[in-house]
């Protein structure tokens, strides 16, 4: 077709953008709740009651999102990104996907090892995925904190890099993932 070049893909697909912003909203909420609940006496119970089901939702969305990612066409990298930057961006993307799957599994696993009922809502609860072993719980509980900080730092680096490109380099990188449709000019 003659319009092939004109419609060159500049943005991620609608589905990919939807999953990106859905994940962003959920994960930022989760990190906020997680940080606040370990420091709170008054809101601990309310926060953890949201933290458990939302964590499982993050896991489900991360898996669906990764499958969708495998079957989607990606827009090309911008020329403002060096070869090394592209490598770092791809690696950090993979790392984020891994964290989004591993962190909820560690949460689920640690509650299993502590033999807490894994209540989602009302009488709805998940089955344990690990045997009752408190030493295992202690290790996973520590890992859950470390992974939360790693996740926060990776998200912060991702956010900083996009800000740098958008504000300083002004290369319109944000448009690639903007929730709205951006027309090629």
């Amino acid at each position, binding site marked *: 077709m003659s319009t092939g070049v004109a419609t060159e893909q500049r943005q991620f697909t609608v589905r990919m953008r939807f999953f990106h912003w859905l994940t962003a909203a959920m994960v930022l909420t989760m990190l906020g709740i997680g940080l606040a609940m370990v420091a709170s006496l008054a809101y601990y119970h309310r926060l953890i009651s949201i933290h458990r089901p939302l964590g499982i939702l993050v896991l489900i969305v991360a898996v669906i999102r990764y499958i969708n990612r495998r079957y989607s066409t990606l827009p090309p990298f911008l020329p403002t990104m060096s070869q090394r930057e592209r490598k770092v961006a791809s690696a950090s993307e993979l790392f984020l996907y891994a964290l989004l799957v591993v962190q909820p599994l560690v949460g689920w696993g640690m509650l299993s090892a502590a033999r807490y009922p894994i209540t989602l809502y009302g009488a709805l*609860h998940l*089955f344990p995925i690990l045997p009752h072993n408190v030493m295992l719980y202690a290790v996973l509980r520590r890992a859950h904190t470390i992974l939360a900080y790693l996740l926060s730092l990776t998200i912060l680096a991702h956010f900083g890099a996009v800000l740098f490109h958008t504000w300083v380099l002004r290369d319109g990188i944000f448009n690639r993932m903007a929730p709205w449709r951006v027309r090629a000019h």
Partner: protein
Amino acid sequence: MADTRHFGRLAGTGIVVLGAAGAFLYLGGWFSPEALTPARFADGFERVDGIYSGFRLNHAKGVCVGGSFESNGRGTRLSKAVVFKAGRVPITGRFSLAGGNPYVADEPEMVRGLGLLFKLPDGEEWRTAMINTPVFGVHTPQAFYDRLLATQPDPKTGKPDPEKMAAFLASHPEAVQAAKIIKSHPVSSGFANSTYYGLNAFWFTNVSGTSIPVRWSMVPVQAFAAADTTEPRPDKNYLFDALIAAIHQHPLQWRLIIMIGQPNDPTNDATVPWPDTREQVDVGTVTLDHVESDYNGPCRNINVDPLVLPEGMAPSDDPLLSARSAVYSQSFTRRAGEKKLPSAVTPPEVLK
């Protein structure tokens, strides 16, 4: 000009990123080191009672028990919780004495605890941690913490400073009132004939969606006998030894009594009793027929978090509930990773 703008935008990027990081650290309490957090609470217990590796921060000395709950079905009109359907569910429990020292000598006036975990057939659980006082001594988590610190032994005398406790009581009239109620309540001779109270209020919701405020207690079938307060005590484990011997002899039983609150009964203040005239429903019988050491028994590695509730039960607005859940969890996490030792009630002691 262009360079200045460039630099300004770069600095702006840095500020926004730092701001985002700061917001998260704020949520995590990094900028309010004085706030009472679960971790500070746990540190307070360790400061006052000492550090005992692998033990609960409070109610450290205890034994595991097991048995079942036989529901008579009368609770179903109060709550749709599966535990109240007529039938039997297995129970894991733990008797304990208050305080963080697992080697403490038994005294009749020490607060006795009973934690129970009901394993429901659909995989849900009900966990409740009760004590043998009819009301709780303090109203808020902060008051609990302040009272705890007031009991810290003075390094010079080895005893708590009476002035500190006097200062605490002077600023907490509700604690004075609660202490009066607790003192007027006769202490029984042992664990087996003690009544255990859930203290905090909860909400029960039945199948038709009606919610009521409740408090619960476990009333012993074993006959009451007043505590013998003459000294010296027969043995440093005499309360536990008597419990162990009694369970070896025959199963011990308690009736689970649900007290139904009226609209003006406080649900957010565990220091205030509800009137005795409130309707009380006997919903079934707890039978405890075996006992094991805390060291190798099944209760040590369980957190009797009072907010592990089945569908049909919900927490009230009592500020102690969320705080108990948070601090129990902190205590559980700390001891989970520590080396475990037997308490003064050793495994051979439980076989006697």
